[in-house]
C-alpha cells in the first residue's frame, strides 16, 4: 500500500477497526514513516482527550420544573379524555382538519364579539394581536410558553369575572360560548400532542389556539375600560 492509501486508514488503525490483514502493512508503514507516525500520535491524543471529557454536567435547576409541568398537564388531559370529558372531536384523520377549521371560525367569532361591542365604544384601543407571535420551534419551547399562556389566561379570567357586570349580557354569553369552544379545541389538541409529541402541526395548532383565547379575553377585557 502507498503512503496516501495508508493515511486514509489511520483513523481506523488508531481505533482498532482494521482487520488483522489490513493492520499489519499499516503498522509496518508507520514504523518507517515519520509523517504517519506523527499523525497516529496526534490522533491518539485527540481521542484520549475526548474520552477524558466529563460525561455528566448538571443541568439548570429550573429544567425539571418545566418538564414536570408538562408531564402533569399531559396526565390531566389524558385523564379527562379517558373519563369521557366533553370532546367535540374524536381522534382520527378528521381531527386536525376540524381543529384547523375551528381556528378560522374562532378568529371570526372573536372579531364579531369585539366589533359588536366596540360599536358602542369607538375610543377603546385595540390590543396588539398575539396571533402574530412566533410559534415555538420545539416542544420544550412550547412547554415554557404554555406556562406563560396559562398564567396570563388566569389573570385575564379573574379580570373578566370582576368586570362581567359591565358587559352586555349577549356579549357575555357569546364570549362564554366562544371560550368553551376554544377550551374544547385546546383539550383535544393537548391530548393529541400527549400521544404524538413530535407532531409540529399540533404544537402550532395548540399554540395558535392559546393565542386566540388570550386575544379574545384581552379584547373583551378592554371593552370594559370605556364603559
Amino acid at each position, binding site marked *: 500500500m502507498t503512503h496516501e492509501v495508508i493515511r486514509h486508514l489511520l*483513523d*481506523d488503525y488508531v*481505533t*482498532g*477497526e482494521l482487520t488483522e490483514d489490513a493492520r499489519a502493512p499499516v503498522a509496518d508503514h508507520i514504523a518507517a514513516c515519520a509523517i504517519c507516525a506523527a499523525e497516529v500520535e*496526534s*490522533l491518539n*491524543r*485527540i*481521542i484520549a*482527550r*475526548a*474520552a*477524558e*471529557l*466529563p*460525561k*455528566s*454536567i*448538571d*443541568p*439548570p435547576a429550573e*429544567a*425539571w420544573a*418545566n*418538564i*414536570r409541568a*408538562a*408531564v*402533569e398537564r*399531559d*396526565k390531566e388531559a389524558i385523564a379527562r379524555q379517558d373519563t369521557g370529558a366533553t370532546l367535540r372531536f374524536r381522534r382520527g384523520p378528521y381531527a386536525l382538519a376540524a381543529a384547523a377549521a375551528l381556528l378560522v371560525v374562532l378568529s371570526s367569532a372573536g372579531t364579531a364579539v369585539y366589533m359588536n361591542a366596540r360599536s358602542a365604544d369607538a375610543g377603546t384601543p385595540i390590543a396588539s394581536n398575539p396571533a402574530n407571535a412566533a410559534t415555538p*420551534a*420545539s*416542544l*420544550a*419551547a412550547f*412547554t*415554557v410558553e404554555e406556562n406563560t399562556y396559562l398564567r396570563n389566561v388566569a389573570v385575564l379570567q379573574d379580570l373578566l369575572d370582576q368586570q362581567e357586570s359591565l358587559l352586555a349580557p349577549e356579549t357575555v354569553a357569546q364570549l362564554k360560548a366562544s371560550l368553551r369552544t376554544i377550551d374544547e379545541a385546546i383539550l383535544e389538541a393537548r391530548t393529541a400532542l*400527549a*400521544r404524538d*409529541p*413530535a407532531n*409540529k402541526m399540533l404544537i402550532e395548532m395548540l399554540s395558535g389556539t392559546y393565542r386566540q383565547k388570550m386575544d379574545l379575553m384581552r379584547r373583551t377585557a378592554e371593552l370594559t375600560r370605556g364603559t
Partner: protein
Amino acid sequence: MKTSAVVSDSIGPNLSTMGEEKAAALDCIQRAQAGDVDAFELLYREHAGRIYALCLRLKGGDSTDATELMQDVFIRAWRRLSTFRGESAFSSWLHRLTVNTMLENARGDQRRIARVLPMDDTSRLAGAARSSGIDLKMDMEDAIASLPKGARLAFVLHDVEGYQHQEIAEQLSVSVGTVKAQLHRARRLLRERLER
C-alpha cells in the same frame, strides 16, 4: 475495538438474576410507565447530567438550546415510556431519543443550526471541564463546539459517547462512509485547532 454504547442490556422478567440496583431501576421505570411522576423524577435525576452533557455538545455549547433540547427529550421520554421494552439500557434509549429529538427539531428550524455561536456559549462546558481538574479540556470543549455540525455530531457520538460507526449511520440516516468521513474531518480540524 470500541465498545458499543448501545449495550444489549436485557431488563427482562428474570428478577432473581438482577442486582438490587438494576431491580430498583426497573421498578422506577415501571412505576413511571404507570404514571408515577415522582418515579419519573428519580429517572430524571439519575440521567439528566449525562443527557444534558450530550445536549450541550450536540448544540455546540449553547446552554439555552441545550436546556431546551434536554427538556424536550424528557417530555418525549415521559410520553413514550410505554414503548420502552427493556431491550436496551434505559440510558441508551434516552441517548437515542436525544439524538432523534435534536435531528427532528433541526429539520424544523434550519436557521437555528446556521446561527453563529456566541463567544460565551461554551462557558458552561468549559466550567464543567475546569471543575473536573483538567485545564486542557476547556480548549477541547471550545474546539468541539467550533466544529461544523456534521463533523461535531460524528465526533461527539463516536469519540465522546462511544457509539459505533454503524449505529451513528443508522441514527443519522447516512452511510457508514459518511460517518467515517465526518469523523476524519472532525479529528483533523481538532488537531489543527488544538495543536497548532
